C-alpha cells in the first residue's frame, strides 16, 4: 500500500466526517487574532495599568500622564541621548512631531497641547510637573518605547525596539470624529456604531487607536459585534491581501480586551 492509495481512500471518507471538519475550518480564527494582537494587547494593558495607577494616586490626569507615572518607576537602562529620549517620550502625544505620512498628525486632544499660560494656575502647575516627569522618563528604556506616534516593546537590556505599532490616543469625541474623517477614505466606517463614545464617555476614558500589521483576513473575519465590528485576524502568510489595519481599543480598564476591540474594514 502506498500513500497514494491512502489518499485515494481518504477521498471516499463519509460526508459527515468531512462536513464536521469543514465547519470548523470555516469559523473565524480567534486564536490567530490573539496571536497577532498579543503585542498590542500588552501595550494596552500597560497603558490601562498606568491609568489605574494614576487615578489611584492623583485626582486628575490623562492616560499619558499615567503612562509617565508607570514609566517613572522603571529605571533599567539610561538612554545615551537625554534630549532625544525626552522628545521620544513626549512625542507620543505631540501632534507637531508626528511624521507627515502619519494620519495621526491632526487628531490630538486640544487640552494636550494647550500652552501653559492659557491654563488655570492649578493646571499650569500640573503641566510643569508633567514636564518634570518627561525629563525623568529619559531613564526609561526597559519595556515600552515611545517614539512620536508609535509604541513598541524593547527587550530589557537591549534597548532595541522589536515591534513598533503606530498609535493615536483619542481623548475627546472631537478627536475621534477628526480621526474617522481621516480614515473614511480608506476604510469602511459605515458599520461603526460609536454613539457610546460621547463627550461624557471621554471624561472617564480614552480611546487608543493602534495600527496593526495584518497578513490578511478571510471574508467572514469582519463580524458585527455589540459595538461596531470585531476584526478577527489570521496569520495566513499565503493570503494575497496583506496590509495594515487600524484597531480601536477601549482603554476603559473594565473592558475586556481584545474581544471588544473595534476593527476597521479596509475598502477594496
Amino acid at each position, binding site marked *: 500500500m502506498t500513500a497514494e492509495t491512502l489518499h485515494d481512500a481518504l*477521498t471516499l471518507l463519509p460526508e459527515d466526517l468531512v462536513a464536521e471538519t469543514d465547519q470548523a*475550518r470555516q469559523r473565524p480564527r480567534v*486564536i490567530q487574532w490573539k496571536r497577532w494582537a498579543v503585542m498590542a494587547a500588552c501595550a494596552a494593558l500597560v497603558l490601562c495599568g498606568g491609568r489605574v495607577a494614576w487615578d489611584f494616586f492623583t485626582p486628575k490626569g490623562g492616560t499619558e500622564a499615567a503612562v509617565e507615572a508607570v514609566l517613572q518607576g522603571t529605571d533599567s537602562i539610561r538612554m545615551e541621548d537625554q534630549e532625544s529620549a525626552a522628545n521620544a517620550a513626549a512625542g507620543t502625544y505631540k501632534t507637531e512631531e508626528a511624521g507627515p505620512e502619519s494620519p495621526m498628525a491632526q487628531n490630538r486632544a486640544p487640552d494636550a497641547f494647550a500652552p501653559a499660560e492659557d491654563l488655570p494656575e492649578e493646571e499650569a502647575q500640573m503641566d510643569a510637573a508633567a514636564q518634570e516627569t518627561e525629563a525623568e522618563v529619559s531613564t526609561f528604556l526597559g519595556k515600552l518605547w515611545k517614539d512620536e506616534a508609535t509604541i513598541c516593546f524593547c527587550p530589557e537590556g537591549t534597548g532595541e525596539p522589536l515591534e513598533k505599532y503606530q498609535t493615536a490616543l483619542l481623548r475627546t469625541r472631537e478627536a475621534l470624529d477628526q480621526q474617522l474623517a481621516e480614515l473614511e477614505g480608506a476604510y469602511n466606517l459605515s458599520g461603526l456604531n460609536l454613539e457610546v463614545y460621547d463627550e461624557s464617555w471621554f471624561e472617564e476614558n480614552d480611546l487608543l487607536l493602534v495600527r496593526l500589521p495584518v497578513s490578511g483576513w478571510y471574508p467572514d473575519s469582519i463580524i458585527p459585534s455589540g459595538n461596531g465590528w470585531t476584526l478577527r485576524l489570521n496569520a495566513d502568510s*499565503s493570503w494575497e491581501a496583506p496590509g495594515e489595519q487600524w484597531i480601536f481599543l477601549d482603554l476603559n480598564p473594565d473592558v475586556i480586551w481584545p474581544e471588544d476591540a473595534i476593527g476597521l474594514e479596509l475598502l477594496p
Partner: protein
Amino acid sequence: MEDAQIVALYWQRDESAIRETEHKYDQYLLKVARNILADLEDSRESVNDTYLAAWNSMPPQKPNVLSAYLAKLTRRISIDLFRYRTRQKRQGSEYALSLSELEDCLSGGNSTEEQVDAKLLAEAIAAYLRTLPETSRRAFVGRYYFLDPLKEVAAYCGISESNAKSLLYRIRLGLKDHLTQEGYL
C-alpha cells in the same frame, strides 16, 4: 441560495445550478484545489472540472452536504491533475519513463476491484477516526483530506502548531496499528 435548492436545480437540469454553485463555493473550492496543486491556473481548471463533474453526477447523486460533496470532487480531480502534471515533469528520466510504460501492464487504477478495495479502506479509516476525540478527527481530516497547512489546522483546532504536529503523529501511528489489525498492512 440554500444547498437543497441548488441540488434541486441540478436535478431539474437547470444550468443556473452551476452559476449558483460558483457564486457560493468558488473560493472555497479554489482553496481546496490550491492546497493540492499549489498553482492558481491548474486550480482554476480543476474547479471548472468540478462544476462539470457535479453537473454530470447530479442526478443520480443527491448529496446531503453539498460543500463536502463538491470538495470531494475537487479533491479527486485535483489529485488526478497533480499526478498527471508530476508524470509530465518526469518525462526526462528514462527510469520514470519506464515506470510509466510498465503501468500499461497494470490496471489503470479504476478497476471495480480496486474501487471496492479503496472503499473498504476508506471505511476502515473512517471507523478508526470515529474512535478519536473530535479535535483529533478534525486535525486528521483537515490535514490529510483538505490538505490544509499545519498552521491552519492548529488554528481551527484551537491548539498550538507543535501540539498539532505531535497529535497528527500519534494519529498516524494509531491508524497504522488499526490498519495492521484490519489486515491492510
